[in-house]
């Protein structure tokens, strides 16, 4: 996650010199966008919490405390314990660590591959483009979650299954948005000027078109991480995702569901963590859209 923030900030720096005189730079636009700032603060908070889990977690997420099972909040266990006496606060932090890490890593390959194939298809068109777009149509015909479940089932349950399933399916939206952005950019005057100036197609593509088309993919990647985290948590809930004993928000909700009558917080708290993360990343995405595309 911290890498995502760093890379988007890095992009801001590299684009700064290109800004037209009189238009405020990316940095100051970011500071003046309440949406961006709220999203950045929420996301940074949650990333800091899960990164610092070993420091502020107090207990190991798998340490059992048989003397205090299903205990309420106390000085000993801030948010109480589950049925095995495991500390809920630690499990929340470590669970978030797993889910955010898996959610972020699962988006990296689809992002890179989708942007690459979308750019190539949009610029060159032709048979490759037609073929790739048919594949995109087919993948989008499946209900997203059904395809993910089926793929995780066939390639094997667990983290590597999640990476493969998302790697095979999630690139299509990036490919489609980048393709249409590239097709528009290809016909613009400054691209014609760059081509007419004698620059090679590769250089025009990666140095002139891509920096302008990638913003859409970056903005979408924020909501995509939310979708992927939701799917990872849902897979965990179904027992198809991150496998125990590794803590995960989804399996915490499954475990807590058995105690709805007596200890509702066990199922509610992990959900609140997911919602908080989701709101933070969505705001960040909206804010990025405002900052990167001011008109």
């Amino acid at each position, binding site marked *: 996650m911290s890498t995502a923030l760093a890379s988007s900030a890095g992009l801001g720096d590299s684009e700064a010199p290109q800004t037209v005189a009189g238009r405020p730079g990316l940095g100051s636009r970011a500071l003046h966008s309440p949406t961006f700032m709220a999203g950045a603060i929420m996301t940074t908070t949650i990333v800091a919490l899960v990164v610092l889990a070993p420091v502020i977690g107090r207990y190991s997420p798998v340490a059992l405390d048989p003397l205090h099972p299903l205990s309420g909040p106390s000085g000993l266990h801030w948010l109480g314990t589950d049925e095995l006496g495991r500390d809920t606060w630690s499990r929340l932090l470590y669970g978030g660590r797993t889910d955010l890490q898996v959610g972020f890593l699962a988006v990296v390959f689809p992002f890179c591959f989708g942007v690459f194939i979308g750019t190539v298809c949009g610029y060159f068109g032709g048979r490759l483009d037609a073929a790739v777009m048919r594949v995109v149509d087919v993948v989008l015909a499946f*209900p997203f*979650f059904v395809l993910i479940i089926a793929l995780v089932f066939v390639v094997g349950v667990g983290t590597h299954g999640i990476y493969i399933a998302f790697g095979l399916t999630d690139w299509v939206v990036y490919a489609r948005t980048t393709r249409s952005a590239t097709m528009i950019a290809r016909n613009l005057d400054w691209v014609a000027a760059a081509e007419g100036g004698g620059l090679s197609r590769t250089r025009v593509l990666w140095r002139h078109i891509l920096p302008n088309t990638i913003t859409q993919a970056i903005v979408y990647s924020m909501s995509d991480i939310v979708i992927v985290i939701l799917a990872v948590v849902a897979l965990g809930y179904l027992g198809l995702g991150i496998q125990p004993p590794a803590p995960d928000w989804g399996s915490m909700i499954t475990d807590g569901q058995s105690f709805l009558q007596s200890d509702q917080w066990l199922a509610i708290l992990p959900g609140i963590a997911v919602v908080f993360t989701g*709101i933070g990343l969505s705001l960040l995405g909206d804010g990025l859209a405002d900052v990167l595309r001011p008109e």
Partner: protein
Amino acid sequence: MTVIEFARHDLAPPLRLALESHLCRQQGREWESEDVWEYQAAGPSSDKGVRTVPVGEVTVLLAPEREERSALGHLASPSLRYVVRRILLSIPVLVGVVVVTFLLLRLIPGDPARTLLGVHATPAAINALRHQLGLDEPIWRQFWAYVYGLAHGNLGRSIYYQAPVSSVIAPCLPLTAALVLIATFFAIVITVPMAALAATHKERPSDHAVRVFSLMGLGMPSFWLGIILIIIFSVDLHWFPVGGYGTTFWQHVHSLVLPGLCAAFAIVPVLIRSLRVGMLEVLGADFVATARAKGLRAWRVTFVHVARNALIPTLTLLGINIAYLIGGTVVIERVFGLNGLGNAMLNAIDLRDFPVVQGITLIYAVGVIGVILITDLVTARLDPRLRLK
């Protein structure tokens, strides 16, 4: 109107005048300012059936009367043509979906038969399953057998139940269909008023409230929302059953209210956002200004003039997002203990019953293709502009 196909459609006005008067003289009449001329950029195929007329130094390409060159040209009405074309367009997707579900088996690492049966299976059992799945045949024969079976309504044979997959799936279909229907209904009922509220009160507190609401929805796992709804409305208030489907029609509807709400929430935030933008566009249109200028009341303008025109984009959006909604019902069926398609799929996964998982995946995709096709046709019926594109 005369259509002129030319290498450039943005011809400079003096050249246009020269060209037009030349063409008029050819037809034996004078150039008149009332004539309407349309310039089109000549496509790469313009050498076919096009007359060339030299005008001064440039050569003009004149297009003949435009003919319907489509293979469907003999179909009389344009709307029928649209329907046929739209149905034909979904066939390649259908073929692709069949290929993908067929390849699922190939993605199982190692020997699929061994993997599915587990480490304690006897070699005889593994061989039997390998034969049942057709793994002892070359891949093209397998694919042909799969397609041939599908064409005859045969989705394969369940490993666990030793019965046709279709007989395992069929009893689950009505429940999932009903759930999707109710969820779609809720999605519309929640989206339209909230988007209208946000659009008519742009940048005001109610707009921001709607925005916070959709932000929360975006990050909320639907199965978790289901658990919360069960805690509030089933465990505490006893308004709805905790799970199950009941036996009578009204019990069915009653037990699908909470699951339907959950499934709807998966797409409501996205729908609200897009519909709000769509409504803002309609609100700026001339006919809305006219309606206001006529002195109509604000609610009448919003709900009669604006909402009616915003209905079409809503339907299109629903079509796009319905796949996501349907995917969400898988988990929701598990939460509410509903024996629909999703639950059947998860049970089959627990039993490692591959043909059932494969069959259900295919049914889901075919369902989505069908729903999108229907929404497209309905939208085209509502909006004649789309048919002409």
